């Protein structure tokens, strides 16, 4: 069966944002450039612009989230859209309604855009393949597959602090196996021309053949952090501790947690990023999280501008 990635139309125009994989650098850069123009807006007294006036954006969160949902909501409101938040984890799905039934019902309420988070990889693709052609879908995280807006705001942050992607060494550290953030970061970094992307993790937290994604694999922080310009930490999900992925948070922190001492192994001007929410003392030491090399809070601020950019670009690309 012909099984096309629905995020680009036949002319290569972005219709949905589902994954950073396979997107050309020109589209990624266009999103980043558009976001630059919105950063100013978010710093003004009157923060609203009327680009999406009259549009209805549904936040469909089949998996709970506070931060991501809130930043999407703020982004939509700053563009003057009407925002409807649905916490579906506790509503229709628990009554047995299927994912596509839920989406079809909301489509009938004249939705213009869906922002979707779901625990299953591929959920956003499924929705994008079945909505009417004038509805846009933004993937706000599907299973372990993709979280493209997080990766884009990370790229935005890197460009802000490092200016150019072509001379960087970037390390992604932590639970790569279960991380949709890591996958989207890897595709965005390699597409934007970062010459060396490393992943650092114990073998239980690395997926098979991860090097095929274009990364260098390290199991040792001392070796992996050498000459690194950007450190991208990942959140370690608590539930991973209950299986046999890791013996204990303490041992993980000792070998893979980012402490001031380990940070010294990277370049002196390296920046430290984290998609949040952080587990202080598990994957990152507070002294680093709150230290002068940390850009974790600016990431959150830029996240709003990047999501505004994605929404406005999609709304302008009518299929």
């Amino acid at each position, binding site marked *: *069966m*012909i*099984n*096309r*990635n*629905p995020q680009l139309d036949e002319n290569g125009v972005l219709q949905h944002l589902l994954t950073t*994989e396979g997107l050309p650098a020109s589209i990624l850069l266009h999103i980043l450039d558009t976001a630059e123009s919105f950063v100013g807006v978010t710093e003004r007294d009157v923060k609203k612009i009327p680009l999406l006036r009259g549009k209805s954006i549904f936040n469909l969160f089949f998996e709970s989230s506070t931060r991501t949902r809130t930043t999407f909501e703020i982004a939509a409101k700053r563009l003057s859209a009407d925002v409807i938040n649905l916490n579906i984890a506790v509503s229709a799905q628990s009554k047995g309604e*299927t*994912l*596509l039934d839920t989406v079809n019902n909301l489509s009938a309420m004249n939705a213009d855009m869906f922002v979707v988070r*779901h625990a*299953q*990889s*591929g*959920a956003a*693709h*499924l929705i994008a393949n*079945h909505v009417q052609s004038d509805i846009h879908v933004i993937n706000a995280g*599907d*299973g*372990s*597959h*993709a979280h493209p807006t997080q990766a884009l705001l990370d790229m935005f942050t890197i460009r802000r602090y490092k200016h150019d992607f072509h001379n960087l060494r970037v390390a992604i550290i932590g639970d790569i196996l279960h991380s*949709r953030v890591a*996958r989207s970061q890897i595709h965005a970094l390699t597409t934007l021309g970062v010459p060396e992307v490393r992943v650092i993790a114990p073998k239980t937290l690395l*997926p*098979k*053949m*991860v090097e*095929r*994604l274009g990364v260098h694999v390290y199991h040792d922080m001392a070796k992996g952090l050498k000459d690194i310009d950007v450190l991208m930490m990942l959140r370690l999900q608590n539930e991973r501790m209950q299986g046999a992925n890791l013996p204990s948070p303490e041992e993980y922190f000792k070998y893979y947690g980012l402490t001031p001492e380990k940070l010294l192994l990277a370049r002196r001007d390296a920046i430290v990023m984290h998609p949040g929410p952080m587990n202080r003392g598990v994957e990152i030491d507070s002294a680093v999280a709150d230290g002068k090399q940390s850009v974790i809070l600016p990431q959150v601020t830029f996240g709003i501008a990047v999501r505004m950019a994605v929404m406005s670009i999609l709304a302008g690309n009518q299929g």
Partner: protein
Amino acid sequence: MKIHIKNGRLIDPKHGVDAVQDIFIAKGKVVAIGAPPNEFQASRVIDAKSLIVCPGLVDLSVRLREPGLEYKATLESEMGAAVAGGVTSFACPPDTDPPLDEPGLVEMLKHRAKNLNQAHVYPIGALTQGLRGERLTEMAELNDAGCVVFGQPDGLLPNLRVLMQAMQYASTFDFSVWLRPQEISLTNDGVAHDGEVATRLGLPTVPVCAETIALSNIILLAKETGVRVHLCRISSAEGLAMIRVAKQQGLPLTCDVTINHMHLSDMDIGFFDSNCHLMPPLRGFSDRDALRNGLLDGTIDAICSDHAPVDEDAKLLPFGQSDIGATGVELLLPLTLKWGLEMRLPLLKVLAKITLDPAKILGIDAGHITVGNAADLCIFDPDYYWKVTPSAILSQGKNTPFLGLELPGRTKYTLVNGHIVYEY
């Protein structure tokens, strides 16, 4: 009814025949091949010019979804699909609801199937009660009721002690045991092959060692108990290599591959195509190529459809939540022919994999055309290409990774016991 099939190219792997020869049928049996018997007056003449006449196909895995799962498919719909695919005998796995673990259930299924007067149905009896892997079923009683072989469903191998005892008991009566090797503790919630595709898509995985570790256990237990074992639906090159060695040592093992695994790899999942959600998972290119070559060198004895109709809603879900399986009984012939064409093999060899060889595994007298035997035949046009669409498939399940593809081989007539049960 007396039938004269004329001008057809008769291909019969058992007798090594590949020649234009007429067939004469009376009272449900083949009464002559070549020249007509004395005073033969046909009531029906089938002109099979430019068609191939071969033994009715034998499929080692067709799920009828009865009893219990009729929303997915019914006996009527799937029996109709089978003969539309030229299949005249097939085995059905015991994973119905309730499972086929009692003689009464088996008798009822056989009876209902017989009343439909279509293909011959051979239920695979449950190896353990309720398929729970704890207590043995009444295998001898089940055999009297019509179960010819015994098995466990996918991914539910009993613990090794129960498995060994089940094998010993089955071997007492010379029943063969059918198992799909998969170690459940290495499977968890896995839905895809542990490789680059699952890594990109963020899908939970079933590693190759889930197959090879289970295989190793089964092979050692087969050696210990002396039971005949049929290994269902091999998926990996490594697993195949183990079977090759075990066969060379003289163990009574046979194995099959599905039409999906011999043509597809995990790359075909593409962007989460739930029609490719199969078990075992589609593996890498090198695995697929090894399976295709394993068929050629005889390590793999037969091709099965692993027919598993699923209702449409159950596939319209995120990949990992969608139901497992693909419809396939109507694609067994086309996809086997496609393999033969791609490997440039003579039809005599190709057709053996879906006629004579699976019949031997099932232990039934079928899969060949012999004077005096039941006239179970498939007459097909090898040069007719048809497009796989939901409306072209008779099965209630329309779920297959091959939707939209054009495949060679169209069944024109299917005969069971000398009756024309399907005509295109």
